[in-house]
């Protein structure tokens, strides 16, 4: 027989095995008696599976090496404490930890709803301009004046086309 299941929260042998079906998806948790009691699993009304799963995926053993978000200094341990992230960039930093969590938490793992089209256009444009300006600088420094002229024209074009949007 396979080795006995470990508790998702504290790694003691699990004796409580819970399966819940939400949104046609099966969620399973294995817990030891003490954790099951502490989390109120035995009380069907006051028990939040998503909350539990959130914490289960943060098993202290897995979190031993501390990752840190380079943008805001947020660590995996901070997430364990607060259950919230530090900044939008944390979603990239902690993506490996996040993925299994999302599957349990949501109906799907990929966004299919509204997209902030204008904000994204603005961002793309901004990125493009920054890129062109760098290229322009480079071209001037290395005395490639024909290239520089081309970049300058392109910058002007982009600025004009989206002039109104860049106003802010």
């Amino acid at each position, binding site marked *: 027989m396979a080795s006995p299941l470990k508790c998702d929260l504290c790694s003691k042998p699990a004796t409580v095995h819970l399966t819940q079906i939400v949104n046609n998806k099966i969620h399973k948790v294995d817990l030891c008696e003490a954790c099951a009691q502490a989390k109120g699993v035995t009380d069907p*009304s006051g028990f939040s599976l998503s909350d539990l799963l959130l914490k289960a995926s943060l098993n202290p053993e897995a979190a031993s090496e501390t990752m840190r978000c380079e943008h805001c200094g*947020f660590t995996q341990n901070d997430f364990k404490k607060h259950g919230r*992230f*530090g900044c939008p960039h944390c979603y990239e930093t902690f993506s490996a930890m996040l993925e299994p969590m999302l599957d349990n938490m949501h109906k799907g793992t990929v*966004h299919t709803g*509204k997209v*902030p089209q204008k904000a994204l256009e603005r961002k793309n444009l901004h990125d493009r301009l920054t890129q062109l300006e760098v290229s322009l600088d480079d071209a001037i420094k290395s005395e490639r004046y024909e290239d520089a002229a081309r970049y300058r024209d392109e910058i002007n074009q982009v600025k004009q086309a989206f002039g109104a949007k860049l106003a802010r």
Partner: protein
Amino acid sequence: MTIASLIATPSELTDTASSKCAIVLMTRIRLARNLAGNPFPGWAREGQRGVVFETCREALAATPQMKRGLNVAIDELSDLEKQILVERHLISRELSGAKSAAGVVISRDQTLSVMINEEDHLRIQVLRAGFQLKKTWNAINDLDSALENVLDYAFSPSLGYLTACPTNLGTGMRASAMMHLPALVISNQMEKVVRAVNQLGMVVRGLFGEGSDASGSIFQISNQTTLGESEEEIIKRLGSVLNSIIEHEQNARAKLMESDAAKIYDKIGRAYGILQHSHLLSSGEAMNLLSLLRLGIDLGLFPDESRSVIDRLFIEAQPGHIQHASQHDLETNQRDILRAERLRAEFAAFAKPDFSRNSQN
């Protein structure tokens, strides 16, 4: 608009002009949004929060929807003013406990409110009386798009709108309906309903959200998940769950009337008597009595027009509103005296129940 004039003006929920209907008291949708490149409010330093607060305030003030609305920092409001906004569902308890660099912008008609620096940089909310998921969605979608013109939202093509808590990722949307379900409560079916609704990926809460009790047999039902489905799909799914709850409530009412009409009439008649003659009323008891009268209206014992009176009193009988009406600091006991006085006055002019009309719907 100042906070004083906002409080003095009827809100969407208390205004007699807005449409009131049986079972669904109001529809509400909120969107969680954050600004790219800025730490979330719970992790940001004071100065960073201040910058986000000012940016969002300005962006909101410039939208046509918020023209001549209320635009305040939370520390400009007294505890009582905050409580009144909570009772009107315009701000959350969490925001009312925030220190500084947080605030709220509320439209003149009090159907739109945007909290700044609550759990997320922006919590956009639209609230409408009755069962109006589509209209509510359209209104909030418009306001969100208007803001997107000037604010750079934190967004990932695969994860959607990025929120402080991963449970709100994706659409960042929570759509909910406030439902009045007295017959399901009286016939002890609520637990069963809660379980069934949970299995469909929806959540049931009390009147004031997470952790609040369901006094007055009023429940808030909303979507649990936000990622993997579009806004329209979530709303459609919620709509069909709500419709089936409405059907269950109606069946429960029909059954109660069939098997034990005297018991229901007795409850409603007594509630009417207490509202007309009591001298001490806690807000919990008042909610329960008003709830029974609303059931009476749905059963045809009182005229339909009186429904808006009840819906207004659901809000005006809350502690903050009673306190505000008195202009003095009150102890709980004094508040209960005033609440009873207030309701005696309201119900002195209220139509008498007509138990001879046996209409059922």
